[in-house]
């Protein structure tokens, strides 16, 4: 089906189900329970999960397949966002043209930077991309303020010209991003007893694009092109002496992943029409690297998991304060309660970075293949130890 089969099809199916049911899955706790803090099923975060999922999936096409570690991919995300916001300001609040422009501009930008950076490999390539991205960031942050609105970020305003559409909505506000009239920010809430589930247009729009992106990424992984990219990672010398020009392959991979980043940037702006320069900073480029490695570089699903993991901590853990902690441990004796709160507050709220840092270390130390490997191990544990015995006998068969 769809030109993919077996495990890949299953994987796509799983991702589709997860994405479509995310509002339920991410909100497992009743609204007023103490655990409600851990609910992640609200539109903004769900959107971020899938958007950064797209970003990471695209990054993985470059890094996972070719091994080229770009430290400047956030630049394409940023460029995508700026393009989209400009499209909203000048043309229309419809997200389609904005996203198309984001992808195109990011692709062109990637073509330029990739063309130059790919003349080098290894760490030299990484630093070249980093340098380009930091330059872009610094330019956006101050020098190019007329285009980017500097530190504040590019926003919509009441006097945007907007050729196809109005500058000001009927209610006197700034019009809302939409898909042919379907407002992105519109959200329907469903109640089941104590549970509340939010269904947002914007989220589903992003989720569909994630599925498309994911599908394309599967196709790329399984295509001859994908094979060539893995060959690039494995041995460029051999590839060259086999008559293949590695440069266009890597450049194509670079541009494709740049376009994924542009799409992610465009979507970010479509969900919330603001483009901040920080999203081009090296820390943002580093974040997508971390997402990919954390999830499992070179695997299909890993980057999406990694993206979800990091965004969850950033958004959920940072919001747990000692007020909430006292609520949780409220039932316990005073001394114990204070003790637990004291310990816990180091890891949540403003300590969320600490938790994240520790988790990075734990995951990479104990699961070298990232979260995906964790999954595989659990799977293996469930299926029992029979495998190993099989392999043993297979290995000991005469080789010839």
């Amino acid at each position, binding site marked *: 089906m769809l030109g993919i089969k077996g495990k890949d099809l299953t994987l796509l199916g799983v991702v589709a189900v997860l994405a479509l049911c995310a509002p339920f899955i991410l909100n497992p706790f009743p609204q007023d329970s103490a655990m409600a803090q851990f*609910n992640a099923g*609200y*539109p*903004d*975060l769900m959107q*971020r999960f899938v958007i950064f999922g797209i970003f990471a999936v695209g990054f993985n096409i470059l890094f996972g397949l070719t091994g080229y570690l770009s430290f400047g991919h956030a630049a394409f995300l940023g460029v995508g966002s700026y393009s989209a916001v400009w499209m909203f300001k000048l043309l229309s609040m419809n997200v389609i043209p904005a996203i198309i422009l984001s992808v195109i501009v990011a692709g062109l930008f990637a073509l330029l930077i990739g063309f130059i950076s790919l003349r080098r490999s290894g760490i030299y390539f990484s630093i070249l991309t980093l340098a380009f991205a930091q330059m872009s960031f*610094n330019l956006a*942050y*101050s020098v190019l303020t007329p285009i980017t609105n*500097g*530190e*504040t*970020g590019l*926003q*919509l*305003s*009441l*006097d945007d010209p907007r050729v196809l559409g109005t500058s000001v909505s009927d*209610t*006197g*506000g*700034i019009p*809302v991003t939409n898909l042919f009239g379907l407002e992105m920010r519109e*959200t329907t809430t469903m109640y089941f007893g104590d549970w509340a589930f*939010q269904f947002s247009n914007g989220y589903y729009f992003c989720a569909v694009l994630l599925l498309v992106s994911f599908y394309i990424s599967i196709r790329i992984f399984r295509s001859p092109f994908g094979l060539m990219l893995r060959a690039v990672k494995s041995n460029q010398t051999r590839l060259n002496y086999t008559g293949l020009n590695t440069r266009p392959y890597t450049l194509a991979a670079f541009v494709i992943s740049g376009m994924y980043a542009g799409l992610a940037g465009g979507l970010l702006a479509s969900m*919330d029409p*603001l483009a*901040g320069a*920080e*999203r081009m900073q090296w820390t943002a480029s580093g974040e997508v690297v971390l997402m990919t490695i954390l999830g499992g570089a070179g695997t299909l699903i890993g980057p999406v998991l990694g993206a979800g993991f990091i965004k969850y901590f*950033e*958004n959920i853990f*940072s*919001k747990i*304060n000692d*007020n909430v902690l006292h609520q949780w441990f409220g039932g316990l004796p005073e001394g114990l309660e204070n003790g637990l709160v004291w310990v816990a507050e180091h890891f949540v*709220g*403003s300590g*969320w*970075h600490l938790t994240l840092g520790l988790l990075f270390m734990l995951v990479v130390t104990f699961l070298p293949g990232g979260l995906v490997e964790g999954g595989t191990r659990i799977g293996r544990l469930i299926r029992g130890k029979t495998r190993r015995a099989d392999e043993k006998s297979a290995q000991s068969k005469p080789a010839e």
Partner: protein
Amino acid sequence: FTNEPTGGTVTLGFNVPQSGPYADEGADELRAYELAVEHLNGEGDGGMLNTFSSKALGGNGIMGKKVAYVTGDTQTKSDAARASAKSMIEKDGAIMITGGSSSGVAVAVQGLCQEAGVIFMAGLTHSNDTTGKDKKANGFRHFFNAYMSAAALAPVLEKLYGSDRAAYHLTADYTWGWTQQESIQAATEALGWTTVNNVLTPLAATDFSSYIAPVLNSGADVLVLNHYGGNMVNSLTNAVQFGLREKQVNGKNFEIVVPLYSELMAKGAGQNIKGIVGSQNWDWKLSDEGTAAFVKSFGTKYGFPPSQAAQTCYAQTLLYADAVERAGSFNPCAVGEALAGFEFDGLGNGKTLYRADDHQCFKDVLVVKGAEDPQDEFHLVEIVEVTPVDQVTYDPEHPMFAGGALGECNPGA
């Protein structure tokens, strides 16, 4: 309207920098917010509720609903701040967002609140743009701004350093730096000073020596550091290292001015800050009864006096609650109406007005100076003068604030 509170509680969103260079300020803001919530819910000693000129608040929550709050990390990035604010609105049902520590972030979050239909009480932001070209109907600012700093400083500068001075500006390259520099340049030139140069410095810079080194030879005899936070601590430290303060230029002592000051910055700069003049929104050493009440409850709870960041955030929370009570509704438009043009006293800044035209707060501004011989670590700054509000008031159409529109209030869905 958005997030209309239906149960027995009402949720406020405190969006402060918990990481990044302003994290200490964020922490102090958060302390103040917690204190404010306590007082609103009738716990503790009531703090400035007792001195506030409006008596609408009774210590029983807001309109009888208990006040709850959520906190978030802005990371001092527009993006992260907006994400955090969005989650407060979407997930936690926050009805008002407040906090922040950078003008860029404040403007970005203010835009979000306008679109989402909640009230934004700006917290720490000092750029002219927040209530100038980027003003929004749903946003209110208690903090003073760059223009006011300049207007308050100018007379003091004239008194201290005379009217024949040549100034060299180093300016952080973003919205706050630009408006701060523009304001102070205009104000000092009005005194008769000349401006030798204005050099924009990258916000990310940590070592300013290459910007400081040419200053002495430029003919300037005053260095104005339009820097805040780490930028200011580092540039001032560098300037002192280069011996600028011991030099004589044009037959006068070389002087350094830091238009926007804070106690936390003074701590970072250490001895270098001694005798350097700047402006503040508020200081715990003021002697009015509002200040005394606030310092007492804050100091008792946390063991040290509050910063101006804390006072600003505390006051804004009370003001919001009070406006809801007076409006009799949580509807942002009703609250906005109650706040616009509201005049009050007793929150530590003397008589204060929330101007309806731009939602900027007008009150007295402090000119301060680094203490020469601080008695302890809380007395690093001493008050030079309390500049009366009239002197810092400007026309809403003043060119530094022109452009942009307040727009209509948005109650949201």
